[in-house]
């Protein structure tokens, strides 16, 4: 039975390839959604991941950065500096707001840096300088390309005009783009002096960041402290909550589409094989073995379409990233494994749908074929 199943699947190569290609397009869609999700999940915390800090200190009760507001007196930085186990501190002022370049608005993180603050600034530059002074801004290179900005160009942030002096790499995501300016400029925009939003703490060698968090919260009043790892996790959760439902829905739609397409392919296959199914039943194949044969065909089509979709994804994603730079695509092994699991479910469902059709094939019709 398996032998016939396998050979009859290969006997119609054009129909088989069409089925595989159709199902692969649905899996490719799911993979793109997964890649967007994985890419954005990583990119949304790219800034936090690249700062060289072991502990983040913020306003009491605040636990993340994305869409959050944190105000601390800049004297808190000195207090933190005195805590046992602290090697050094840097402070940033932070605001999330809409930045306009031409008519293009973009939600952004604005980070106000002190002069010489390399730890909290951009970590890779495409062009220009990394640390802005008064009246200057460093913007993501992707943002600059999208809004046709070049070095020396201007953009408006909260009704103040800034000159672009640097284009940073890896600082753009759909949920947040990181723009750097001088802390004094950001204080002007926010109308407050001598405040900071976050204090970035570097621990002394051998100091456990978890212990340091406890030390800071005990010794400095009205602040919250988190290890960088915990801070990133919180931010990732917060940021992705806003997009995860959409991505999950799209993945579900893509998976459902894959089920329908594979089921349709199997259904067509059964329709084409109806005469032969009647014959094999008449010759003594049980409903169970015929059904298992159909399930095997569905599995074969699904597996082949997943492989094809993976190959296409690996080939097309670099091109897609180049064409749509605002999209961060990342195809991970976990994504492929998840899609393989989805594929197994797809194959099962797709072979269940025509099961009734298989059962209804009357072996008696072999006499009338």
């Amino acid at each position, binding site marked *: 039975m398996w032998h016939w199943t396998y050979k009859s699947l290969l006997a119609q190569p054009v129909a088989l390839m069409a089925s595989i290609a159709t199902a692969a397009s649905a899996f490719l869609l799911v993979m793109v959604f997964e890649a967007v999700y994985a890419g954005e999940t990583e990119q949304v915390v790219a800034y936090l991941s690249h700062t060289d800090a072991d502990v983040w200190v913020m306003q009491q009760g605040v636990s993340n950065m994305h869409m959050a507001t944190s105000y601390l007196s800049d004297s808190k930085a000195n207090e933190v500096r005195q805590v046992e186990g602290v090697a050094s501190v840097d402070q940033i002022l932070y605001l999330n707001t809409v930045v306009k370049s031409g008519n293009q608005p973009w939600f952004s993180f604005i980070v106000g840096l002190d002069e010489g603050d390399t730890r909290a600034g951009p970590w890779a530059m495409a062009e220009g300088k990394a640390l802005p002074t008064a009246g200057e801004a460093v913007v993501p290179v992707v943002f600059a390309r999208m809004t046709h900005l070049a070095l020396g160009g201007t953009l408006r942030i909260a009704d103040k005009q800034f000159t672009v002096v640097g284009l940073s790499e890896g600082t753009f995501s759909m949920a947040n783009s990181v723009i750097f300016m001088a802390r004094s400029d950001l204080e002007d925009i926010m109308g407050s002096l001598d405040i900071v939003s976050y204090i970035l703490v570097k621990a002394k060698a051998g100091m456990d960041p978890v212990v340091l968090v406890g030390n800071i919260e005990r010794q400095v009043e009205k602040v919250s402290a988190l290890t960088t790892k915990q801070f990133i996790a919180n931010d990732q959760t917060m940021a992705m909550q806003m997009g995860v439902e959409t991505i999950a829905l799209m993945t579900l739609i893509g998976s459902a589409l894959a089920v329908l397409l594979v089921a349709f392919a199997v259904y067509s296959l059964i329709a084409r094989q109806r005469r*032969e199914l009647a014959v094999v039943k008449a*010759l*003594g194949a049980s409903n169970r073995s015929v059904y298992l044969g159909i399930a095997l065909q569905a599995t074969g089509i699904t597996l082949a379409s997943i492989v094809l979709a993976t190959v296409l994804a690996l080939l097309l994603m670099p091109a897609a990233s180049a064409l749509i730079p605002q999209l961060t695509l990342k195809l991970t092994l976990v994504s492929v494994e998840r899609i393989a699991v989805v594929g197994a479910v797809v194959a099962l469902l797709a072979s269940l749908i025509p099961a009734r059709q298989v059962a209804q094939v009357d*072996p*008696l019709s*072999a006499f*009338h074929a």
Partner: protein
Amino acid sequence: MENETILSCDALVKTFGSGHTEVRAVDGISLQVGRGELVLIMGPSGSGKTTLLSMLGGLLRPTSGKVFIDGNEITQLDESQLPRVRARSIGFVFQSFNLLDALTVEENILFPARLVPASLESARSRATELIARLGLTKRRTNKPGTLSGGEKQRVAIARALINEPALILADEPTGNLDSANGQEVMMILHDIARDEGRSVILVTHDPRVEDLADRILWLEDGALRDRKTEQHSWVHDPVCHMRVDEWTAEISTDHEAQHYVFCSQRCLDRFSLEPQRYISEEKHTPGQGHGA
């Protein structure tokens, strides 16, 4: 050995529909077929021949009555048990061959063996014997699409024999074959019964095979009747010139106010393409009128 009953059925009834629309396709048939016997079931269209054959082969449940194969009642088996009986105990030969297109000649022959656990290895050598015996050696790796009608039916017969079943059920096995191939297939079925001791039940309209049969059963209105030999009205098929009983022939056509009967659909198809050719050939062939 000849007295050993391979197939028997008792008061077999099959009705379709109910109330005013009820049709008794098979009406109380009892039958016994011994080992090595070749039995012909003949009758007009709609007489219930295929219905009877289907019930004997475990493909259709009777409304009432019992069917025994090799002493085992198959009518009491459930749907999950019947396929095994079909695979082990019955060989089917169909009018339209019903070979599996994706498989080679050898793979088609071996297909029923794959349905019976642990029989595949011994079946391989048997397949080789059958291929040689039925003149298919050069076609062993061919797909059905490249075979002639006669070759296809020989493959189907080999497939029916691969599991060495006690019973062969053949439905119009010569229906799609020309005269020479039809004759050859009939001789093979005859040898299967005579030499191998298998019971062969054959539903046919082909009067050529009557001489080969041990018994001829005439089925009409769902019941077996006596077949009177004087009830023949022999005419000739205008295409292959084979002798055809006009009274029982199912394949016929009217052309220019004349009635023509044929031995097979194949001959009718040929006639339909070039009727004038065959009519003029017939006129120039003394003593071979269509008789109608």
